[in-house]
């Protein structure tokens, strides 16, 4: 994936009509509702995605992610609420083709026909767009260079997924929906895909992503919207989700032989053979602890310093009734 993306250049006297005033928001969702029979899949979802931003929709299965995504993509009618995608209502009939011209999507399923080659599959899709990216450019972007003539059915699962990604990119979308884009990737392929997503952002593409991979959300997303039971339970930058940044830091180490927690310079809990210190002032406390250890000549083996991970916060917020950890961040 060495190809560089060209940054969207400033307009030089555009030959076609301006499509509307500059919009800071690519997506605005307000009070979205959708039921299937008696099941309320989406009860009240509001969030927005600014142009050029990467936002991750997180949540357990059945939280309403796919339904929300399908309403945004225009595949599903909503029961209530307002949706604006690139200045248009995706549920409206007028301008649907223009909206599809400007959006790309990568679905959860690997949806490619088996008997065409990689190049043919991409070229076919390119023919549907008014101003597609060049086929060879996209092939090398997704890391399929050298496999242009390979039949799709001879590709590995990960390679098919890359082809899927290529089909989402070929139309040169302003807005890209990625539905669990790296499921089934090996770690190296996943890193490549992340690199590609960052390149796309750098080139100005807005991305709405769903994933079950917390590391992915952490690595890529500017903001995370956490759904549970059809509601937004938390929203914010991954580092601060659910008040994660304000929560206590945990210092853990193996209790040195012959010592009890009472001998330590700081209040600590003994858990198994380990000492655990929870603190709001990790810098000061670590200094105290390590100076004490150096003076006493004891080793603090297995020393770790951590804060609740995104996954901890995710589990905390999506389990049992889903009480938002930090109400001020919730957008209910």
């Amino acid at each position: 994936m060495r190809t560089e993306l060209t940054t969207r250049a400033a307009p030089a006297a555009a030959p076609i009509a301006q499509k509307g005033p500059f919009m800071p928001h690519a997506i605005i969702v307000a009070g979205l509702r959708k039921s299937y029979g008696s099941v309320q899949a989406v009860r009240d979802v509001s969030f927005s995605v600014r142009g050029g931003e990467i936002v991750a929709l997180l949540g357990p299965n059945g939280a309403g992610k796919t339904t929300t995504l399908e309403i945004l993509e225009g595949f599903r009618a909503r029961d209530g609420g307002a949706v604006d995608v690139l200045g248009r209502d995706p549920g409206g009939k007028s301008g649907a083709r223009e909206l599809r011209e400007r959006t790309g999507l990568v679905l959860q399923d690997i949806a490619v026909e088996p008997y065409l080659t990689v190049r043919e599959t991409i070229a076919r899709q390119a023919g549907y767009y008014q101003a597609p990216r060049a086929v060879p450019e996209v092939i090398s972007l997704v890391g399929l260079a050298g496999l242009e003539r390979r039949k799709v059915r001879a590709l590995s699962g990960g390679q098919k997924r890359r082809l899927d990604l290529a089909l989402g990119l070929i139309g040169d979308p302003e807005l890209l929906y990625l539905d669990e884009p790296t499921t089934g990737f090996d770690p190296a392929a996943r890193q490549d895909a992340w690199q590609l997503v960052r390149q796309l952002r750098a080139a100005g593409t807005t991305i709405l992503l769903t994933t079950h991979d917390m590391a992915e959300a952490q690595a890529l997303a500017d903001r995370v919207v956490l759904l549970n039971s059809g509601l937004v339970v938390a929203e914010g930058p991954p580092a601060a989700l659910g008040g994660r940044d304000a929560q206590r830091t945990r210092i853990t180490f193996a209790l040195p032989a012959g010592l009890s927690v009472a001998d330590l310079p700081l209040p600590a809990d003994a858990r198994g053979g380990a000492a655990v210190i929870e603190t709001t002032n990790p810098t000061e406390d670590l200094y105290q602890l390590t100076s004490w250890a150096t003076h006493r000549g004891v080793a603090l083996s297995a020393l770790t310093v951590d804060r609740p991970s995104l996954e901890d916060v995710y589990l905390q917020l999506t389990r049992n009734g889903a009480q938002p950890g930090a109400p001020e961040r919730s957008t209910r």
Partner: protein
Amino acid sequence: MTAAALAGRPQHRRSNLGLVTHQVGYEQLSFWRNPQSAVFTFVFPVLFVTIMGALFGSVGKSSYFGGLSALQYYVPTIAALSVLGSCYGQLAVALATRRQNGILKRVRATPLPAWAYFTGLLAHCVLVSLVDIALIVGVGGLYGVPFPSQWLAITLTLVLGAACFCALGVAVASVISNAEAAPAVAQLVLFPLLFLSGTYMPIHSQLLNQIAGWLPVRPFNEALTGPLSRHTGADWRHLAVLAAWGAVGAVVAISRFRWNPRPE
């Protein structure tokens, strides 16, 4: 992006015809690369007419075959069968499978208009049907069936029949919810209809023929038999019945067709 980035790239708003040609080209490529579809579509009807020729090639004109020789009877009915297979059968199964795999959803997410997608499929099916008919007429010729002369009427009947059975195929694909059931449902509907319509042997019951005359297969058989074996022109009465069925299929297809594998 809007106007800014679009301006930076080569613009090519394809003409509608260009879009359909693009679509037909890739449908054809995909079709010919798939050994299974090619075999079922071409080998089966050719084998069928060859076997019929070997069995009944010497049976001359008889009242049993409505005043035709056995092969003059079978060439049009097998030709009709091949069109049914490549339009109705293929589409019902292929579309149900494509929907289940998410391929239809992906197509729907592109700017390709729905009408262009379906026109492409129809044109593809007509092309395949043309090859089928040419092969069957060719084999018939080897057994001494005189070559038809009414090519305009044949083409008209073929295109109308293909359109009708494409619409019915899309309609069946719209009604079926999962791809595994598609081949079974498509064949279950078709098989009794073929027997009833005299595809495999002439039916001499007035009542059955009257019933079958209002169903889609027999009118197509009749409409093809005229120009293929009797050297008559277009059979407007039967073509009208076909067109009516095509319209019914189209209405069901348009109102029930789903692109999304997940039901609403």
